[in-house]
């Protein structure tokens, strides 16, 4: 009797040439790590929404496997289901087998960008997004009162979108939050000395969306770091770190930005490169891996990635020194996917928040589920993003918070949009800490 009992090996033969090109296809060993157990299904936002196998991590890996075995092509359903992934990496947290879905997606998305012809509308829209968001100056122009197109018609991609698909331009515009001209154009000081005894020296990535739309978060970050004994350097000529493009599979431009960011920061005499944006932190920590086969940059990238820390990691590392004023209230902490799942930074933000006297810290139901922001996702897949936003807002409301905190501008915008009527302040954790250290009322935004 031979009883072929349960096996994770699909035994699918190599039926033809792989559908992936030779530049960094998904690695065979990484695909084989998946044992098809399905433990990832409950935490996958798209599986939760649609209940379809192809829109689960297990299903997507299965499709990658089929493409790699030459059984299916990259266009059509394959691209549809890879596009539908939010890249939240909740599956990486859930997986008992240690499947590195993050690495798989990171190699598959550029394959799609290179090898699949997108329809014209999709192409125009993506071009417009990426001609705007990584550029601080253009974002500032977009932040000025008035219609987006009026301000940005000098950018060809935006003009084309406005002419061909004005509706999608309007959708993009509706996501940009109102911001005062003063805040949009404000600049951080290049050097802020530590208050009291110096405990370290850090450089801050000020970000693009973060610096224009959440300048107040950057200001709070600089103040808090200084108050905790750090000299803070903010190089003025820094540019986008490439996270947004990287997570969308635009590998070449993303790597260009990675190299520029490394070059800008590596010469600074600092212990740590700090970021207060979950998405930026996760991509900068990954530079070493991303540039591993670029001889000229591999070791520089590894060294740089080794110095990158999220602001909460820095703050939680040493005992607090700046006195805190109490905040009496319920604080709901939302784990940004790129902080919790991608960087596994979960305890530190909580520790930082608990350093504020009287804070009642509460976790959210379905905490592992993405809020739907996910980089450019809420622009390219507004329906799914909307459902997730509504669901997240409901979960936040259920714990009746006085303040909601989360460490990513995308999440701040997304949760803010779906809780606009609630009147609850939605802040970055450092804003709350900053208010506590300074003894000022908690800001409303």
């Amino acid at each position, binding site marked *: *009797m031979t*009883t072929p009992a349960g*096996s994770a*090996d699909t035994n699918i033969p190599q039926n033809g040439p792989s559908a992936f090109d030779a530049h960094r296809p998904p690695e065979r060993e990484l695909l084989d790590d998946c044992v*098809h157990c399905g433990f990832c299904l409950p935490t996958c936002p798209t599986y939760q929404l649609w209940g*379809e196998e192809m829109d689960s991590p297990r299903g997507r890996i299965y499709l990658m496997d*089929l493409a790699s075995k030459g059984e299916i092509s990259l266009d059509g*359903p394959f691209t549809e289901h890879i596009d539908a992934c939010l890249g939240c990496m909740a599956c990486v947290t859930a997986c*008992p*087998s240690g499947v590195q879905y993050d690495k798989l997606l990171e190699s598959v998305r550029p394959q799609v960008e290179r090898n699949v012809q997108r329809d014209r509308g999709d192409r125009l829209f993506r071009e417009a997004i990426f001609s705007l968001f990584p550029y601080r100056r253009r974002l500032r122009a977009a932040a000025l009162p008035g219609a987006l197109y009026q301000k940005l018609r000098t950018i060809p991609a935006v003009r084309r979108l406005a002419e061909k698909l004005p509706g999608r331009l309007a959708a993009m515009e509706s996501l940009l939050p109102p911001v005062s001209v003063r805040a949009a154009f404000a600049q951080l000081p290049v050097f802020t000395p530590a208050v009291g005894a110096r405990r370290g020296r850090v450089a801050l990535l000020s970000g693009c969306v973060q610096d224009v739309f959440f300048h107040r978060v950057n200001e709070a970050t600089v103040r808090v770091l200084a108050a905790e004994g750090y000299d803070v350097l903010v190089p003025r000529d820094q540019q986008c770190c490439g996270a947004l493009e990287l997570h969308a599979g635009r590998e070449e431009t993303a790597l260009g930005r990675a190299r520029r960011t490394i070059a800008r920061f590596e010469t600074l005499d600092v212990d740590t490169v700090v970021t207060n944006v979950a998405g930026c932190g996760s991509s900068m920590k990954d530079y070493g891996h991303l540039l591993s086969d670029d001889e000229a940059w591999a070791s520089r990238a590894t060294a740089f990635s080794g110095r990158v820390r999220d602001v909460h990691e820095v703050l939680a590392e040493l005992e607090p020194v700046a006195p805190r004023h109490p905040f009496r209230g319920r604080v709901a902490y939302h784990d940004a996917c790129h902080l919790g799942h991608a960087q596994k930074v979960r305890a530190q933000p909580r520790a930082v928040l608990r350093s504020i006297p009287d804070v009642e810290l509460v976790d959210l139901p379905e905490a592992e589920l993405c809020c739907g922001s996910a980089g450019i996702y809420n622009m390219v897949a507004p329906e799914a993003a909307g459902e997730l936003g509504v669901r997240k807002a409901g979960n936040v409301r259920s714990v009746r918070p006085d303040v909601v905190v989360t460490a990513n501008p995308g999440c701040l915008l997304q949760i803010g949009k779906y809780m606009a009527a609630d009147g609850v302040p939605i802040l970055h954790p450092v804003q709350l800490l900053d208010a506590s250290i300074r003894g000022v009322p908690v800001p409303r935004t």
Partner: protein
Amino acid sequence: MTLHGGVRQAFERVLDPADVLSDPVKCRAYECDGLTGYRVCPDLVLLPRDAAQVAAAVRVCHEHKVPFVARGAGTGLSGGALPVADGVVISLARLKRVLEVDPANRRAVVEPGVTNLEITAAAAPHGLYYAPDPSSQQVCTIGGNVAENSGGAHCLKYGFTTNHVLSCEVVLPDGSVVTLGTDTGEQAGPDLRGVFLGSEGTLGITTSITVRLLRTPESVRTLLADFPSVAAAGDVVSDIVAAGIVPAAVEMMDTLAIEAAEEAVHAGYTVGVPAALVVELDGPVEECDAQFEQVKAICEKHGCTRLHIAGSVEERAKIWKGRKAAFAAVGRISPDYFVQDGVVPRTRLAEVLDRIAGMGTDAGLRVANVFHAGDGNLHPLVLYSAAAGETERAERLSGEIAELCVEMGGSLSGEHGIGTDKACSMPKMFSEDDLAVMARVQAAFDPHNLCNPGKVLPTPRLCGERPGKYRAHPLEESGVIERL
């Protein structure tokens, strides 16, 4: 042969056309469940949104004589949700509402796509929980649990799914809808609910399940004990039962399983020890405490090398997480593996494990063991590397282990089901008469053999050839039989 367009249109009339998947690439994502070695791509995948749509879809199947296979989360390990060529998959993933929690009567009504753990989550605010706890409980659905009569670590004390399902609304293979069982659990006449439970999707599709809820125990005590040998750990299990203690769970893991689980979860298992037991007691505080002392004494008597008591709810959860993730975690220590599922009388545990170890050595393959020691339900995992050409040897070893279980007076399957995987082994355990009676029961529900055909009972086609893409049977080629 594929289904003709008229059938697809018929489905599209009763479901939203967007809920009828026909693209072959999409359908391929459904070609296997947790047992990936068997694959059949269905012609269509249906994603109904409620019970009425399920019934309507089944009526179309019946009318056009299209075979159908119900699928929950696709986590089964016996190929029970393997699609049928030229058939459809009916996914219950979208029927995931908790319809009612009735704390006064301690029961809940749920749709089949609700996960096992979601039932407990819905009941928890009332101090209640759903007892059967398959290791995949965070993902496996209650519909699948009903189909497989799933067990779990705590079924030693509380019984299997069948002991906790009061009634099911079932769509029979002709599309009619009946309720089997009653909400009180007391039924006059033949227990058709009992027949349906564990029928592995061959008698119909359940669309609503009324489950019994239990009160969350007043006290739970959990210990993790290391032993110098598997035999010593086995003796502890026997002694605990002999002492009249009914533990909530007694789980055993051997060196390899411990290594894998620890690597995945970092729960504090001791890497390198030959065997570890997880013993859990629950109930009233006094009883629990007294029996816990007895268990500790028994562990020490048998040379326990380390005894660790879970000090907090989190720590207990961590220990269980390690145990429950063990199957998938084995993926960390071996490129490929077979999961076996068999039962032996508890008293022969040590003997069987010894034999399995010997068989592994003979075959030159590693075997990891993780199992429900309390009820003798073994899960030997045969580790191998397909790339190194070990597949056939591993398959043979895994089969011999199942055969050994039957030989020892046990069973082919404890809880993973027969499905596709073990249908051909059924004659090892049952006589021809036994199987004929089972076939007659099946035919009474499903005279046209449309409902998950080819599962559980051996058929000449299934057992005469390897599963996979459709190939004509020799008798078919010679014109003796024809395909319906």
